[in-house]
C-alpha cells in the first residue's frame, strides 16, 4: 500500500502523527513529512484511522 498526502489540503494538524508516528511526522517547521510511503500491512488499521481522523481529509491509501 502507498500513503498519499494531498498537501493542498494538509493543514498540519498532526492528528495522523499522534495515531501513526512511525509514518507521519510534523516537524518544527510545521510541515508534514511522510517517513515511510510504503509501510507494511501491519499498519493498515492504524492508517485507516488516520485517514478517517484527518480534519482536512488530506490522507488516502492506495493499493499497489
Amino acid at each position, binding site marked *: 500500500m502507498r500513503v498519499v498526502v494531498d498537501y493542498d489540503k494538509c*493543514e498540519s494538524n*498532526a*492528528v495522523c*502523527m*499522534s495515531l501513526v508516528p512511525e509514518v507521519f*511526522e510534523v516537524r*518544527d517547521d*510545521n510541515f508534514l513529512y511522510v517517513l515511510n510511503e510504503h509501510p507494511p500491512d501491519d499498519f493498515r488499521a492504524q492508517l485507516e484511522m488516520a485517514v478517517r*481522523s484527518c480534519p482536512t481529509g488530506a490522507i488516502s491509501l492506495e493499493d499497489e
Partner: protein
Amino acid sequence: MSLGTVAVVGASLAGLRAVETLRAEGHDGHLVLVGAEPHLPYDRPPLSKQVLAGSRSPADTTLRPANDYDSLDLDLRLGTRATGLDLDSRHIVLDSGEPIGFDGLVIATGASPRRLPGMAPLAGVHVLRTLDDCLAIVAELDDGPRVVVVGAGFIGSEVAATCRGRGLEVTVVEALDVPLVRAVGPVMGRVLSQVHVDNGVALRTGVGVARFEGNDRVEQVVLDDGSTIDADLVVVGVGVGPEVAWLEGSGLTLANGVGCDANCAASPGVVAAGDVARWHNPLFDTDMRVEHWTNAAEQGVAAARTLLAMAKRVEPEPFAPVPYFWSDQYGLKIQYVGASRPDDEVVVVDGSTDERRFLAVYGRGGRVVAALAIGRPGLLMTYRSLIAKRASWEEALAPRPPR
C-alpha cells in the same frame, strides 16, 4: 447473531463514520441513516472559518462525495427527524410518523445551540451550528455590519476572528471573567482572550447580555451593567446542549447526554457517538462528553465496532481516547489534547505565550493530563502520545529534542 437492521440517527460526522465502519467491517444487512438536515453529511469546522470568510464554497464542505454513497448501500432519510425511541419493541419513530424497527441503533444526534433565555427572535441575531445558519450570516456580512459576538468560546472566537479578517468591527461579550476557563483553565484562557485584543477586537468580559433592542432588526445589545453596544449583526455562541429530547421516556439515562459505558453502549444493541454521547473514558477514569470534531469521528468508529462486537458476542474494545481539538484564529493554529480541570498545574515547556507560539502542559496527581499549543502542532502530538500512555508529570516537563 447477525446485526439485522441497523438504524443510525444523526447524519453528521459521527453518524457517517459509524455507517462507513459498519459497512467496512462486515455489516451487510439493512442500514438506515436518518438526518434532520436536508444536506448530505458535511463538515462543520469550515463554517466558522473558510465558508464564513467566503474563501470556500458551501458545496466544498461535503464529507463524502455525493456519487460515493452507492457503495454504502444506505436507506438514506434526510430532512427527517427521529421523534421517539421504543426500546421494548425496538423501533424508532420518524417525524412523518413512520416507525423503523432496528436490531442495532447508533444515536448520533449531536447538539444544538443554546439560546439566551427570554429573548424574542429578532432579525440579525444568529447562532452558528448548521450550514444554513452559516449561509444566513454570510448573506449579511457583505453589508459591512458592526458585529457583536456573544460568548468567547471557540465558535464565538472563530466567528470574531473571521469577521476581523473581513475587516469588520467586532465586539466580543463574555459573561465569565476569563473566557474558556472551563476548557483550558484560567491561565491559558487569559492568553487566548488576549489574542482577540491583539487583533483589534473590543473584548468585554465579566458582563452578560440583558437584551437585544431594535425595531425590524437588531440595533443594539444591552448589557447587564446597562451599557449598550451598537450592532448590525449578532452571533450568539453560548454553548450547545446535547440533542436528546427525542429520547425522553425511552428508558435511556439522559443527563448531560446519553449515558454510556466505556464501550459507548447505552443499552444492549444501542450505542451513542459524538456530541450527544456521555461515556466513561477509562484513560481518565471519568465520564466525559466531548463536542469536538475528532471525537465525533473516532467515536463514530468505536460505537459501530461495539455493535459489531455485540453481534459476534465478543468483548468490545473500550473507547479511551485523548480528546483533541483545534481552532484556527487570526492565522494562529490553537490546539489542545487531553482533559484538564481549572485547578491543574500549568507549565509552559516550549516557546513563550507573549510570542503566541508555545506549548503548555497540564498536570494533576503526578500525571500529565493535557497540553495546549499555539503554532506547535507536531510537538503537541508527542504529548498526545504521552497522555495516552499515562506518562508522569516529570516526563512531560523533560525537554524534547528538536526535529
